[in-house]
């Protein structure tokens, strides 16, 4: 009886503790990185259940702020190999289960 309860608690704990954005790889300058990260967080929180909308929002906002053409991938599991413009890549985890990759390549 105790096990499922504990595991549930663990899960909640995990979710709570792992909700912060974690940057895995980036070569952006400091200012840009912070801005992009905040944008990703906002988008993923706004469209918690719809990754596509979140990705679209991030892409469009990035296009506006830093010029086209930005590409965004959001998902729980994927592999990728991309060519990006130097100083324009951000690969981060968010919310404990989401991976977000934002890059620019025009």
């Amino acid at each position: 009886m105790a096990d499922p309860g504990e595991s549930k608690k663990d899960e909640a704990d995990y979710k709570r503790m792992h909700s912060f954005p974690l940057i895995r790889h980036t070569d952006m300058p400091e200012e840009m990185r912070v801005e992009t990260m905040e944008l990703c967080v906002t988008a993923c929180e706004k469209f918690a259940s719809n990754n596509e909308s979140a990705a679209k929002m991030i892409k469009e906002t990035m296009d506006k702020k830093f010029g086209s053409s930005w590409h965004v991938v959001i998902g729980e599991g994927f592999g990728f190999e991309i060519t990006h413009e130097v100083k324009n890549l951000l690969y981060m985890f968010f919310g404990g289960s989401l991976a977000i990759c934002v890059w620019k390549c025009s």
Partner: protein
Amino acid sequence: MPTKQRQNVAAVGQIPKPNVLKPSKAASKKKDDDDSTDVGDGVEEWTQAKTLIKPRDQLELTEAELNEEFTRILTANNPHAPQNIVRYSFKERAYKAVSMVEQLAVHFSLDGNLLHKDSDEARRQKLRMGGLEGPTHIDSPAAEPADNMETEEHPGTPVPAAGDEGADGEDAPKLKERKLTNQFNFSERASQSLNNPLRERACQTEPPPREVFSASANQWEIYDAYVEELKKQQKLKEKPKAPASKKEEETPSRRRMGATESQSDDISKLAKSCKIMERMVNQNSFDDVTQDFKYFEDPADEFRGQEGTLMPLWKFQQEQAKGLAVTALCWNPNYKDLFAVAHGSYDFMKQNRGLVLFYSLKNPSFPEYLFSADSGVMCLDLHRDHPYLVAAGFYDGNVAIYNLKADTPQPSFISSAKSGKHTDPVWQVKWQRDDMDNNPNFFSVSSDGRVVSWTLVKDELVHSDVIKLSFSGTTASGPEGLRLHIHGSGTAFDFHWQTEYLYLVGTEEGNIHKCSKAYSSKFLDTYEAHSMAVDTVRWNPFHPKVFISCSSDWTVKIWQHDVKSPMFVFDLSAPVADVAWAPYSSTVFAAVTVDGKVHVFDLSVNKYEALCQQPVVAKKKTKLTHVEFNPVYPILIVGDDRGYVTSLKLSPNLRKMPKEKKGQEAQKGPEVEVAKLDKLLALVREPDIQQGETESPTHRAEY
């Protein structure tokens, strides 16, 4: 067919116009009138607004005059036309008055190039143009006129009128486009301007740099990353917990410092590696010299008997020091390869600037430190316990402390006229042991006859006069009974390494005073040592009673401080600029003379002559000024008055230790050295005991 029809219509429409339009004439005319008046009014209004300029010669009229009314009747009669013309009438055979008088007067006439559109000329032109343009309007107007005729046919309206309207509507734009021209005074001209040549130009920018990045994301990777990150954060949290409170206070200032540091950091990092590179390059280019310095032992010494040689190693020079004499040399007590050089000038007439340089044997091509001064630097000394403190004395009488740790080209502390600087050149400075409050302090001696103790208290140099040198007569009576105090001029001094209060002062007059720090008015003893200025006095580093002095009177003398006359006298046949005891033997010393020679003596080997007497300067006129033994390595450095410092290696004969006797252990240590010198002194002293004190008790070793 269509063209014909159209032409017909046009002809019908235009030719009979005045007649055909009669039914609607009244209405159209009224319209015309309205139009014309309208236009005319508009024009008048428009012009009136613009033409209110008065002519310059207009009469000034009063209101009354302006209001005056003149009634004039304008008639169509020509006033100049004669009223009474008579003509002869042949019919009636009499003169008869002509009733019809011509009233017309022509003032102006101009031939116009416009044609009335109803005139024959116009009609002919129109026909011609119509013929030309005909083919262009084949299709479109073909049906239209017919349509128009059908649609606009009203009962009671004559057919031609409708056709007329249609034709008018058709032709009007065309007539507007083409002005009808008078064939007699119209000409057409055409020209074309030059077209600029076109040129193509293209360039391509480099595409922005790109990189390839690949990774894969899945749940377990994300989980692992988060767990790792959390662990890291926890560790960080645990660490700064203790000093957290302190850190918070410090952060702002530290951040500011961090910013400045990081800026300078890059350069300083670079500077460090540059320095290493520089040394590597120097090591390569001076490889042979370094090898000699370390390993070369002159094999010829074995066959040379007692004599030895000096082998020149590196030569130190610096662009800025060119022409500035070397006024002092001092080895760093910590780093055995580092030494300080002071540059100034001994020439009273050529005083300008000074330099303090620090050279390392590891980098002979450029000084490690460089300080420049406005006045010639005459002496310097490195603190024994804090080798970064450099005391320097200047020609203008100031003393200063340079701090190698502080990264400024200015001295950290300098005396001033207020704080008791010397009034004459400072000839020597010497650090003392830190005083009871652990304040660093040093002594200085100057031509103004004062020996001054300087103490560094916090941020100030505090001075106190230790002694005032007085000439043997102390006072001389000047004219008118004035008593003049004639002071002695100190040129050199040295402090005893064992008896702390004891020190020697050499003077310009040639006397050497033995003084105590405890008495500021009296000398313990005075040696009438030389006949010219004493250049250097130095205590023997092993024997506590022996000191050496040299002078411009060509002599080097060795003294026992409790005997008033010298033990040894050496005449070097040139003014002696400096003399130094060797650090490895009590009986070895080196002297430099102004004729460019270095003399090395070992009393235990030869009491009369130098083992080595070697010119070391390139040019004949160069004078040597100073000499100093390295405390560890068998080399000495020699400075000259051109600003060069030469390092010389002592050959094996010059640093021979007493021979080891078979079966005995080699004796070493200060006691042995003292005994060795004592033995020599005893040899010299012996006759003095026998002969008494009336005769010269010295053993003269002149050559």
